[in-house]
């Protein structure tokens, strides 16, 4: 036990005060001549004894309160011993661990890691795939072993970063050891922001040998003559087998395939496919990962509709955006139609109501009826992407949508760039680490929008909100605070323009549940995250959930390569001893308990003193 401010312990000398008072007060009792002292002695409730006992309790309570107060001010803390006090065992449960025998070996190594914990060392168990879950909080080895007993491989893909971050979080800056038990797939670091690891966290990797090769169905598509199937061989030897097509659970066709080592082939399974239903293509691969041996497909026709791109120019409205959306295929079967903004009020109402989203690039000649239709459309569940620009009058937009704060939106001139602040947002998720490329776009004019009722997904480098989102009735609105038609920036000339525009429009055009194919990591909650064909609650839509085929490659990496992906905490010098002591004391916070105990002692003193 050490103290941050030991000088305060001198305050403990104050305990002399109640002791002296106690002694003085004891002598204060005056002599009173009396006759019936025998009766006092005979009293069954001996007040004298009780009084004496109470005096000692009172003295003890007062002394304890003063000692605790002095100790609390001295800020006590426990210096950590040489051994780390926490051992976090992170177990890989991605679907690659489902290869025959792999997970049994994984659990055995995890159990060894738990048993190796030193006496007094707490053990936590984290299970991870594309996310990390704490299945045994820091505690004893028995609890950790019990948690391991119930662990099974899942259908997620490997991501190391969430497990490392959870280890860092559990360690809380104290000395700790993180042991990852994994098959060391290289894909586990793909598109991941390397986690920052403090010096106090020691990371060890225990490699579990996986299969030498793996055959995986990478995609299934409906084709004119049946189904087009992609099969990849990640092994060092050629692979061969039969791909089977099952319709609603019944095998209806098959075709043989041969895949050279490290190659992917597309095969066709000839069959007249029904208009509706669910199909699954399966292959046999006894050595590889079972989860990627099948792939599901929904045969239901895609929902029709259109996306209106309202620009200023009647002849060629919204040139860049229209081209980007057409090239990117926002949603299968959806028509992209460019119209002048004035047409929103002139066209038949069905034009808009049958659309899935409106991209508003201009408010020129947008009359009152057009404004009302636009607002009704959004509130009824339609999507709206608004891009600022000289053609968009914020006052008109604010009037149309009922956003009074838009009358105060100002145009700002000055060079700035874009920085995504929420990389997990669906618009930026497709970019992965390449989201940084958005920073190459140069903006000369932007809007200054007060983001009080908006969620900000990206900002300009001057701090102003760049990409904002809000819910409007049943619809979703995304506002880009600069132009998409190359008037205020050079965005359309950058490679990131097409994916950005497509993802932004897809985000507003496809509300949750309208998508027909998901990866396990993105699957709606009511699918349970398991591969297969599911019916969504509410809409009743049939959706297919498949595993992420990035996990299908057993290519591994060495421990050094793994460690190289970690970012040490700035490589800074360890903080001075007094700073470490302050950090340790702040983390332990024993002074709070001292004050609480002191209050308890004072309450006890008050209680005893009243009797």
């Amino acid at each position, binding site marked *: 036990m050490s103290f941050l401010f030991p000088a305060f312990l001198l305050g403990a000398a104050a305990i002399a005060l109640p002791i002296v008072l106690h002694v003085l007060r004891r002598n204060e009792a005056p002599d009173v001549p*009396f006759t019936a002292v025998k009766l006092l002695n005979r009293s069954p409730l001996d007040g004298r004894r009780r009084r004496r006992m109470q005096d000692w309790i009172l003295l003890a309570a007062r002394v304890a309160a003063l000692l605790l107060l002095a100790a609390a001010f001295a800020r006590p803390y426990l210096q950590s011993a040489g051994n780390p006090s926490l051992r976090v065992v992170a177990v890989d449960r991605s679907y690659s661990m489902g290869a025959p025998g792999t997970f049994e070996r994984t659990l055995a190594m995890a159990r060894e890691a738990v048993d190796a914990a030193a006496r007094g060392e707490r053990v936590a168990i984290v299970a991870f795939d594309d996310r990390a879950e704490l299945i045994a909080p820091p505690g004893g080895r028995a609890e950790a072993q019990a948690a391991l007993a119930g662990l099974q491989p899942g259908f997620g893909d490997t991501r190391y970063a969430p497990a490392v971050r959870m280890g860092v979080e559990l360690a809380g800056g104290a000395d700790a050891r993180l042991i990852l038990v994994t098959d060391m797939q290289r894909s586990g670091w793909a598109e991941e922001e390397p986690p920052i690891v403090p010096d106090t966290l020691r990371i060890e990797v225990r490699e579990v040998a996986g299969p030498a090769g793996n055959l995986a169905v990478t995609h299934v598509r409906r084709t004119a003559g049946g189904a087009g199937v992609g099969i990849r061989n990640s092994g060092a030897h050629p692979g061969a087998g039969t791909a089977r097509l099952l319709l609603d659970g019944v095998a209806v066709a098959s075709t043989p395939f041969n895949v050279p080592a490290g190659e992917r082939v597309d095969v066709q399974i000839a069959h007249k496919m029904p208009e509706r239903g669910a199909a699954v293509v399966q292959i046999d691969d006894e050595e590889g990962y079972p989860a990627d041996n099948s792939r599901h497909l929904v045969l239901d026709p895609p929902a029709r509709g259109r996306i209106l791109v309202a620009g200023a120019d009647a002849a060629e409205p919204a040139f860049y955006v229209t081209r980007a959306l057409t090239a990117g295929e926002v949603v299968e079967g959806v028509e992209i139609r460019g119209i002048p903004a004035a047409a929103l009020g002139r066209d038949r109402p069905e034009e808009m109501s049958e659309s899935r989203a409106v991209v508003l690039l201009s408010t020129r000649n947008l009359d009152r009826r057009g404004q009302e239709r636009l607002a009704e459309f959004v509130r009824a569940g339609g999507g709206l992407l608004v891009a600022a620009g000289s053609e968009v009058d914020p006052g008109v937009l604010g009037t149309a949508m009922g956003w009074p704060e838009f009358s105060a939106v100002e145009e700002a001139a000055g060079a700035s760039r874009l920085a995504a602040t929420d990389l997990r947002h669906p618009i930026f998720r497709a970019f992965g680490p390449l989201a940084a490329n958005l920073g190459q776009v140069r903006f000369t004019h932007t809007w200054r929008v007060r983001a009080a009722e908006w969620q900000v997904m990206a900002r300009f480098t001057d701090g102003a909100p760049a990409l904002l989102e809000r819910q409007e009735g049943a619809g979703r609105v995304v506002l880009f605070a600069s132009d998409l038609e190359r008037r205020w920036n050079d965005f359309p000339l950058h490679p990131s323009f097409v994916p950005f525009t497509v993802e932004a429009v897809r985000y507003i055009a496809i509300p949750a549940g309208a998508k027909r194919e998901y990866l396990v990591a993105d699957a709606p909650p009511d699918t349970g995250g398991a591969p297969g064909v599911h019916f969504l609650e509410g809409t009743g839509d049939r959706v297919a959930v498949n595993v992420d085929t990035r996990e299908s490659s057993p290519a591994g990496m060495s421990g050094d390569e793994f460690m190289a992906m970690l970012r040490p905490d700035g490589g800074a010098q360890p903080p001075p001893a007094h700073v470490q002591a302050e950090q340790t004391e702040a983390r332990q916070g024993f002074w709070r308990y001292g004050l609480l105990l002191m209050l308890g002692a004072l309450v006890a003193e008050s209680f005893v003193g009243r009797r």
Partner: protein
Amino acid sequence: MELKARTVVEGFLSGLHRSPLRGFSVEFAEYRQYLPGDDLTAIDWRVYARSDRHYVKKFEEETNLECHVLLDVSASMGYRGAAPLTKLEYASVLAGALAYLMHRQRDATGLIAFDDRITFRLPAGARGGHLHAVLLALERLRAGRTSNVAQPLRQLAEALVKRSLVVLISDLLDEPGAIIKGLRHLKARGSDVVVFQVLDPDELTFPFQGAANFRDVETGEAVLAESAAIRPAYLRELAGLTGRFDRELRGAGIDYLQLDTSKPLDLALLAYLASRQRRK
């Protein structure tokens, strides 16, 4: 003392006691014409036969009763709390009043003072100068040592040769079993026994405050206690003690009266005599 005793007694002289020797040694005084309400047995039928008028005989009361006043002069009787008199002073006035009363009734009165032994003894006498001797002795009494009530009771019981009236005046802060046993013994030997327990208001209410070191005036024993904490238990003990005296003495036919030294003595005596009169 004589003045005090007379002041207390004047006004209620109609009999402290019944004569234990009924019909013995009475002298005729005079005749008086019968008045309604007079005892019919007192009518002298001979005079009626002679004069055809109803006359009742009137006798001068005179007994040879011996009254022994036992006065506790232990140190505890010297205690004075909130009251104007010490218990011994109060008890002396009571003893003097009783002696005066006896003298007025022409009974013989004796005085025994004691603490843990008999410290003064004046044999019973009825002569004119005897009252003065009793009162003088009472005037000179001082509180002594520790008390032992049972001891003089035993000695007195051995010394009494004829049935008497024994009056014990004490605070009775002694072993109750021995006191009760001694008094019963006296009663069994034919004496009429009256017990006055004299207590100071401090002893009756325990009005002390705060922590105090209570020191026994007889033994010097000290008890450190918080007054408020110990008060209920003390009062329970005192009530138990006096209740035991009241129950067991009355059960043995012994009169028991508790006196508060802060209360006027004549009122206390009046109440006692009234109750005694009712039982006649």
